[in-house]
């Protein structure tokens, strides 16, 4: 079918899949805590506080090596939301391919709750008695 930007679902899966695979390969072989070529968080450099995404790359590196505990330590929110994010990707592709709504219509409440979770996580991870 004629899809987003003229791309068919097959190509969309192929492109996003290879980008994800390339990223995973880089993150698997090069530990972000060892190599300096990774982008650094500007928010962290300027303020010294951790942003909600800080430690994300290191967390993925640990996950790819099967270390769930240290991945959780680097960025708990990312580890917890990865299953949800992959489900979201599958749902979007599924809808495109079969032209049928899955999981009902998109609701704005999902967006607001997601943003609230990110915001609260960003605050809590900087509070010493929650995340020492």
């Amino acid at each position, binding site marked *: 079918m004629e899809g987003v930007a003229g791309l068919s679902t097959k190509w969309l899966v192929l492109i996003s899949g290879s980008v994800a695979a390339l990223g995973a390969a880089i993150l698997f072989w090069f530990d972000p805590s060892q190599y300096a070529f990774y982008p650094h*968080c500007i928010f962290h450099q300027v303020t010294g506080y951790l942003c909600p995404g800080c430690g994300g790359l290191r967390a993925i590196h640990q996950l790819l090596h099967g270390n769930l505990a240290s991945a959780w330590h680097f960025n708990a929110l990312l580890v917890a939301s990865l299953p949800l994010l992959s489900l979201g990707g599958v749902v979007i592709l599924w809808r495109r391919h079969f032209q049928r709504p899955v999981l009902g219509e998109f609701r704005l409440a999902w967006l607001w709750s997601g943003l609230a979770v990110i915001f609260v996580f960003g605050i809590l991870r900087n509070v010493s008695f929650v995340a020492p």
Partner: protein
Amino acid sequence: MYKILGGDGREYGPVAADVIRQWIAEGRANAQTKVLPEGATEWKLLGGVPEFMGALGTVLAPPGVPGPIVAPAIAPRNNPLAIAGLVLGILALTLGICCYGLPFNVAGLIFSIIALVQINKDPQTQSGKGMAIAGLILSILSFLLAALLLILGLALSSSDFLKKLQNM
């Protein structure tokens, strides 16, 4: 799939039978509303289509009283994905300092594009094209800002990087 001819003379749809049943329940369509089944060439009255007898029966006026000809007053609804795309686009630019706005501009781009496709497919019941386009532009701007910051950061840390390479 069916098309509906509104009391305002505009065509609505094509929509699924379930949607029409919902319109009947909401009083937007009734037995006198004209309907064009997919593949047919002639408009029929909704009351003459066996598929909708059940739905019409539950809201039918008492016998003898002519039913009011209610136009399907379908107000175009803002596409929720367009709103989401716009919100994410704004966040991508304002919170771009965290992770280069990456979660927000990627999601904003995806949501805005899906919203534009949905709105173009069904412009009579969905609005919010302006918001979707704004979300798209803001997300792309955020990507450009991210690229700029990335290059700036790399230029600043390239001296460190070279040192590390020499020590290897």
